[in-house]
């Protein structure tokens, strides 16, 4: 039993390290849901856009911001109209700083990492992706609990 578990863990680790990275989309999407402005006006602290976003070149290197709310919003570096989206591609690994009045710091940082070309980088990327999706899920649960 223990040997089977260890074998599975090693297999998963080997897959994570060696399997090429593939993503159906290179978009990292952030949306302002409808009703966000009203919630903010009623005193609810709604954080949509983290002040530090990590992207990966060649895999997840397009930042997509969408305003689904019914009012204009400053979202990341730009003013967005209701229903509008903004799609910003990155082509160089670097740390980018944007002015963003939506954050208390007044800044939004986008870190663009190089393509995960070696086994360790692939494991690291997959771990980050899992963490990202788990965070999205918990954010969803938190949002539902506030309704």
């Amino acid at each position: 039993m223990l040997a089977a578990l260890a074998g599975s863990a090693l297999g998963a680790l080997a897959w994570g390290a060696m399997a090429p990275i593939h993503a159906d989309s290179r978009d990292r999407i952030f949306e302002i849901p409808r009703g966000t402005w009203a919630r903010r006006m009623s005193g609810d602290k709604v954080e949509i856009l983290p002040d530090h976003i990590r992207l990966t070149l060649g895999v997840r290197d397009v930042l997509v911001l969408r305003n689904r709310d019914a009012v204009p919003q400053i979202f990341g570096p730009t003013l967005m109209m209701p229903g509008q989206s903004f799609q910003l591609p990155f082509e160089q690994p670097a740390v980018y700083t944007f002015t963003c009045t939506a954050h208390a710091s007044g800044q939004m940082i986008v870190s663009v990492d190089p393509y995960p070309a070696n086994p360790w980088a692939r494991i690291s990327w997959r771990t980050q992706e899992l963490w990202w999706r788990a965070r999205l899920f918990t954010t969803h649960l938190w949002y539902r609990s506030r309704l």
Partner: protein
Amino acid sequence: MTDAHTTTPSLSRRVFGAAILSMLLVGASSAGATAFKAGVFDPPRQAPDFSLQGSDGHELRISLFRGKVVLLAFGYSSCTEVCPVTLATFAQARRKLGAAAANVQVVYVTVDPQRDVPEHLKKFLAAFDSTFIGGTGTEAQLGTVRKQYGVTATKIPYEDSYTYAHSSFTYLIDRTGRIRALMPYGHSPGDYANDLSILLKE
């Protein structure tokens, strides 16, 4: 801002749930398909018009440049870091375009009306490219323009003078006057030339 919009909790839940689901599934909406180097707006909105004092001595309105592709940037002539780089980049991009550059207009709106009077702006911009046009006005006028374009500018006292922290991006406005894209600070003349070429061919 327009009026607040309220939704029922159940609707909000469904909408937010759908948004989260779409993000989890990572829909294949673009896959980096855009040919623009800048960030692209969809749908593009009409560039808000304004009336300022132009550095050429005439009224400056963004609508005057319909038929041309406009690079719209905000800054101030005493800026020592961002603005000189941005304006030099614009000038190089125009040179890369050759004859097509005749249909590209750079508009540079100051955030510092106290120092950037029209004559000074004209001299400052001519150092980069004599076709560049600057815009200035009262604090209130410029504040309104910045708000319309989502631009920030904060005056910061510095020794016995002052400086500004200001938005460093550039808007790309197409021939029909729509804001098509936003180029963050730091892109190369080649990136600008690429995007301008796309818009010029439309």
